[in-house]
């Protein structure tokens, strides 16, 4: 009881002067992301004339668009104070289910429905383990990451499932106003989710849950339902991303999207979302996705092997959590 007394006493100091407004606006992790994005763009176009070509960048983006779309939803999951590392595995399993259903003779729309439903179920399974069994999401989704990809291997073996009808494949080659469809999807999804997170009451509640789940519950916010919704959304988004990948590659295999969990987490962290929840924006994730594409494509243009690029991705991940933490720790006081 005295510990509570003292805490109260400590907090009963007089109001500290607020930080100047320019600091509030400018010292944000998203600003860092934005500056890095500009630097990367300048550096890359200096490196190679390819980068002056918007079409080239847009085309490069299609390779990352699937992970970037899942990262948008993952942003919300992390803001709510949880995490889901199983996204890439959910992509693989739902895509394999799609492939198997199609191979069993069902029409594509049925297979799409199967894949979306499976995504929702996988997300719900994560949610049940985290919310109802009260297990830490970070470890649970390490487990389901292995489980879902393992199941994908079980149902699809190591063969590629393909021969999809031509209208389904090659999503990345279809252009609307010269922009590939996967990029369009990302362009459409980002503002919708940004609006949802930034301007709806539900979006606001996600921040509140991530800031203090206990206070959120006391304020009447339905913490468990909202978190469950986010896990399911994560599953559905992964299923959509899985279908997009299936269309782009014209086939599915159990190893679809391997290593995607790193890229998803990297995009979210690079976008300045706080690993401990309560802070972050879709805008940050949106910018970070482009930053990643430019860096990765830049490395490819510079002839750095895909595998060696992991060095930079890993460094970026660690750097971005340290930087984000530092910025929030500074502005918190």
């Amino acid at each position, binding site marked *: 009881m005295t510990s509570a007394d*003292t805490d109260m006493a400590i*907090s009963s100091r007089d109001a500290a002067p607020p930080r100047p407004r320019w600091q509030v606006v400018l010292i944000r992790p998203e600003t860092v992301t934005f500056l890095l994005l500009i630097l990367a763009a300048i550096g890359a176009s200096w490196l190679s004339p390819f980068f002056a070509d918007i079409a080239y960048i847009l085309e490069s983006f299609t390779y990352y668009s699937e992970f970037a779309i899942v990262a948008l939803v993952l942003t919300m999951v992390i803001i709510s104070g949880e995490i889901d590392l199983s996204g890439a595995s959910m992509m693989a399993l739902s895509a394999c289910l799609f492939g198997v259903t199609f191979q069993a003779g069902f029409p594509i729309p049925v297979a799409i429905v199967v894949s979306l439903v499976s995504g929702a179920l996988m997300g719900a399974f994560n949610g049940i383990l985290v919310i109802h069994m009260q297990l830490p999401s970070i470890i649970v989704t390490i487990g389901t990451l292995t489980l879902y990809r393992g199941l994908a291997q079980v149902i699809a073996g190591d063969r590629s499932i393909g021969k999809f009808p031509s209208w389904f494949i090659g999503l990345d080659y279809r252009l609307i106003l010269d922009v590939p469809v996967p990029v369009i999807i990302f362009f459409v999804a980002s503002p919708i989710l940004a609006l949802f997170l930034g301007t*709806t009451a539900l979006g606001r509640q996600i921040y509140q849950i991530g*800031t203090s789940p206990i206070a959120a519950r006391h304020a009447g916010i339905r913490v468990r339902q909202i978190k469950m919704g986010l896990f399911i959304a994560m599953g559905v988004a992964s299923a959509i991303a899985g279908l997009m990948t299936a269309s782009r590659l014209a086939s599915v295999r159990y190893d679809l999207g391997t290593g995607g969990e790193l890229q998803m987490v990297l995009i979210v962290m690079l976008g300045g979302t706080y690993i401990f929840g309560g802070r972050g924006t879709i805008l940050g994730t949106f910018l970070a996705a482009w930053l990643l594409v430019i860096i990765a494509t830049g490395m490819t243009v510079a002839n750095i092997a895909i595998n060696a690029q992991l060095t930079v991705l890993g460094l970026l991940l660690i750097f971005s959590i340290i930087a984000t933490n530092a910025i929030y720790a500074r502005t918190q006081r």
Partner: protein
Amino acid sequence: MTNEPVTEAPAPNTAAPLLSARGITKQFAGVEVLRNVDLDFQSGEIHALLGENGAGKSTFAKIVAGVHLPTRGTLALNGVPVDVPNPIAAQRLGITLIHQEPISFPDMSVAENLVLGRTEGALLGRVPWAEMARNANGMMDLLGVKIDVTVPMRGLSIADQQMVEIARALASNSRLIIMDEPTAPLTPVEVETLFAIARRLRDEGRTIIFISHRLEEVRALCDRATIFRDGNLVKTDDVAALSDEDIIRLMIGRPVKEYLHKHRAEIGDVALAVENLSSAGLFEDISLQVRRGEIVGLAGLVGAGRTDVARAIFGIAPAESGQITVDGKAVVIREPSDAISLGLAFVPEDRAAAGIFGSLSVEHNITAAVPRRIAPRGFIARGIEKALALQSVDKLRIRLASLRQPISELSGGNQQKSILARWLLTEPDVFILDEPTRGIDIGVKAEFYDMIGDLAASGRAILLISSELPELLALCDRILVMSEGKMTADLSRAEATQESVMRAAVPKSGTHAQAVAA
């Protein structure tokens, strides 16, 4: 192994008291919670520290044990001045604090918990398991308790965990053992065992500081008692020389600044009624009614179950049995959101964890419970939100620099006003306020009393939980008293005095402690 300079226990000097404190003052962020305390503890005495919540007794104990540093003042052990910068230093000086819920390593065995962290020996030195178990068993025999020293701490009852802590104090040869409300979670039989051990330790010449609320226990066990009030030491005397009436008077005897709210409210229909609410281990068979316009106080000591009842009513930890009625209709409340839609509001005791969203703006904090009002069509209408927040700030006179300021930058009083503002926006009929003025400056407290009075005057029903008796006496139309999970009194305004409330609140050790603690 540790870096701080080792302060060895000074050589005994029989003339001086074992521990003497001089001019101990403690401030937390400018607020004095302990003022100029001089106190001596003799070898071979059991010394009670008494006082209301926040009187300073626990803070004093924690300074002695190195948990807190005094702002001013000195400690001397056997007449030699000592520094107690941290609990490890205290341990080395032979001072051990036993927390009410002992700090332990739940996955490790009892024997290991006894020696863990004792710093002698090389890091790669062998752990002498056999010797450790033998010593631990010897210690348990010495204490006369039957605890299997090979089982993990996790499986032990609180009482046994305390025994292990006491054993640990003995193992490190502590001469001063501080027990912070050790009996609260114990059954009567366990209390007796504890007392027998405490007496034996005293007879060996050790000193025990015993912090408790239970006068019977103090009388049964302690030789001397020191009474704290509002951070001051008011009296130290032999227990035998103090009557119960004396002690209670000294504990609460501050000049009560009577606060009377001006317009007494019209008392209307029953707004909230609770019947036979029970939750195993927390409270049992609680019934109460609060009428519109009425302020009902809920008094009791910390741990009496008041907060648990409030949490049950509001759906945070619903009761296992019992019936809640709102406005005459029987209702089921499974979640706080259910309670809110029924017109209930709850200001929690633990403001930092359960009240505020620390890093979010004041504005977002104020509007947190009314998503439908700020976002009529799902989208937040900034204009409406800002207007509501500004209105609240004006109405409750919240002092802030900007609505966009993180609420953690505000003072405690202004944070609490923001929480109150949050609930006012839900337009509730029933307010449950749990220690609403804790950690709030005196000046702002008066504002809160006005607000609470106004709320009642506007026809709201108010259930006010407070540990400050003068506050309850001044504000309430009726005071309910809880003790050890049960309702022990329902006092009208005329019947309620500091003495009558305190008498109902102090547990009658042994009567029903068993049922609650089991």
